[in-house]
């Protein structure tokens, strides 16, 4: 009977509950199972000589492998940057009031998503065979400029172009989804302020869409990291997968060199995930779920203080008992 006592002496510290916590034996059992499975996996990796861990160690930081890592990163970053710019353009075109823009964007996405990346890369590599000379001029008319395709579209550029153009088609759909996620009221508010459509897109809609666009784009970047191994179709032969394969074939030790490549891909992916976390945090600013816990507490406190400070309740007298419709007029 502590409750009535506490009520009589409100100053007294309420007696805290000290109950026996619920036991969760399932957690301990699952932990034990996971530890055993992990030990088995490590054992299987370490004791099997086929993995040849000394060989892995020997090649992990060898010059061709590190150079391969560099090329893989270069291909990933460059093609993603080009793809992002192109994708935003395509997504905006898809929403354009101009039907020609909408149609062009649709056809682009249809084509580059609909054909295999490997085939596309082969064709970018074949470009210099199919069209040895690139000429700019009036169709069926005079020629203005002429270039040797081999020079303009060397293997590196063909690889980057092939990866970027393909990726842009996928990213365009992600950007489009992001743009669609922004509330219509945001357009209306910006329009009512007299902002022009381009400014509205750039200043109001796109920054909010980024919150939706960034997570799947991070996913696409990690996917691109590994898709770069397909550029041997161009053929481009300096990136990580090809470099490790070549060493593995030459030394008759394919397995340890596959491990070398896998370790590097995993390491780069980890770094990319950290980067994604910070990008997400930047574009999440102003959205409550991303506000640090302390600030969120302050905001609730501030809100209550604001309500109290407003002294608005007495003013409500005549309006207080009126049913206030949430919707209202059309």
């Amino acid at each position, binding site marked *: 009977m502590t409750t009535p006592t506490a009520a009589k002496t409100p100053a007294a510290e309420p007696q805290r509950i000290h109950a026996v916590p619920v036991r969760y034996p399932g957690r301990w059992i699952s932990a034990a199972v996971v530890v055993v499975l992990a030990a088995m996996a490590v054992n299987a990796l370490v004791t099997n000589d086929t993995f040849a861990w000394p060989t892995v160690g020997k090649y992990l930081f060898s010059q061709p492998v590190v150079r391969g890592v560099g090329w893989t990163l270069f291909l990933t970053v460059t093609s993603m940057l080009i793809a992002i710019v192109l994708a935003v353009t395509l997504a905006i075109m898809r929403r354009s009031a101009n039907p020609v823009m909408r149609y062009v964007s649709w056809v682009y996405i249809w084509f580059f998503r609909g054909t295999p990346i490997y085939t596309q890369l082969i064709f970018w590599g074949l470009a210099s065979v199919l069209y040895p000379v690139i000429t700019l001029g009036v169709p069926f008319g005079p020629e203005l400029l002429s270039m040797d395709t081999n020079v303009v579209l060397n293997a590196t550029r063909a690889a980057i172009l092939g990866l970027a153009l393909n990726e842009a088609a996928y990213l365009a759909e992600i950007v489009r989804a992001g743009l669609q996620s922004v509330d219509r*009221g945001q357009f209306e508010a910006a329009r009512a302020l007299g902002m022009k459509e381009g400014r509205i897109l750039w200043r109001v809609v796109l920054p909010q869409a980024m919150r939706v666009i960034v997570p799947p784009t991070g996913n696409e970047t990690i996917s691109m990291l590994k898709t770069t191994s397909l550029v041997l179709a161009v053929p481009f032969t300096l990136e990580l997968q090809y470099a490790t394969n070549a060493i593995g074939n030459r030394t008759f030790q394919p397995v340890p060199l596959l491990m070398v490549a896998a370790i590097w891909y995993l390491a780069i992916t980890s770094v990319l995930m950290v980067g994604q976390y910070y990008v997400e945090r930047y574009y999440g600013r102003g959205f*409550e779920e991303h506000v640090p816990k302390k600030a969120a507490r302050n905001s609730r406190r501030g809100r209550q203080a604001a309500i109290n400070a407003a002294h608005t309740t007495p003013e409500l007298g005549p309006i207080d008992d009126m049913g206030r419709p949430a919707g209202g007029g059309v």
Partner: protein
Amino acid sequence: MSAPTTSTAPMVEMTGVHKWFGHAHVLRGVDLVVPRGTVTVMLGPSGSGKSTALRCINQLEEIGAGSIRVEGELMGYREGARGGAPTLYRLHPRQIAVQRARVGMVFQRFNLFPHMTALGNVMEAPVQVLGKSKAEARERALQMLARVGLADRVDHYPAQLSGGQQQRVAIARALAMDPDIMLFDEPTSALDPELVGEVLGVMRDLAASGMTMVVVTHEIGFAREVADQVVFMADGVIVEHGPVSQVIDAPTEQRTQDFLAHVL
């Protein structure tokens, strides 16, 4: 940019305005004059077309028939002649944006930009639309936020503000454009009851400062206190209009009487 404007032209003049949404005929000939420096309160049941009428004034909705003039300037069209016959030419979206810049609007759901602070929200349009310098826009924005009583909340994001505070930021954002007229579309309908007063207080001050205002609301108390003209709409037409003493205190139309019996 403007058509012949005279200082005697009313702030807003709607003449025979019709609006269709597909087959729905939501405005059926609305005639309304809002004199300069007055407050017009629009009342009416849900679906009566009062919000649509308001949104037509700043071209958020394109009208189907009739005309709307703000300070004598035709909204959304340019008057010309083709082959000797008077013809309307639709304005380019860029020109409509210019017309909208002098009509401020406050929405039921605030529609603040969530990725910008209160200060950023108020500075945005003066910088992007009027081409003011950041320093100038910032100073003006701080004044506007102080005017709505939020000088200590300028660096808060909308999600960190109460509904009433957000709506006051929205009012400051519209005022920062130095509008000739302010439109309010049910500005307190989305607020918790205890937050309604602070927003109405700001609007009362604004009315006292001589701002021309058109307010769609269900706050009869506010209308009684501030309105120079009350307009009662039902089924897409203005059923009754006049001073408070007439429309609210002594309505002659049955529909007005029924509506007021429900809300009072």
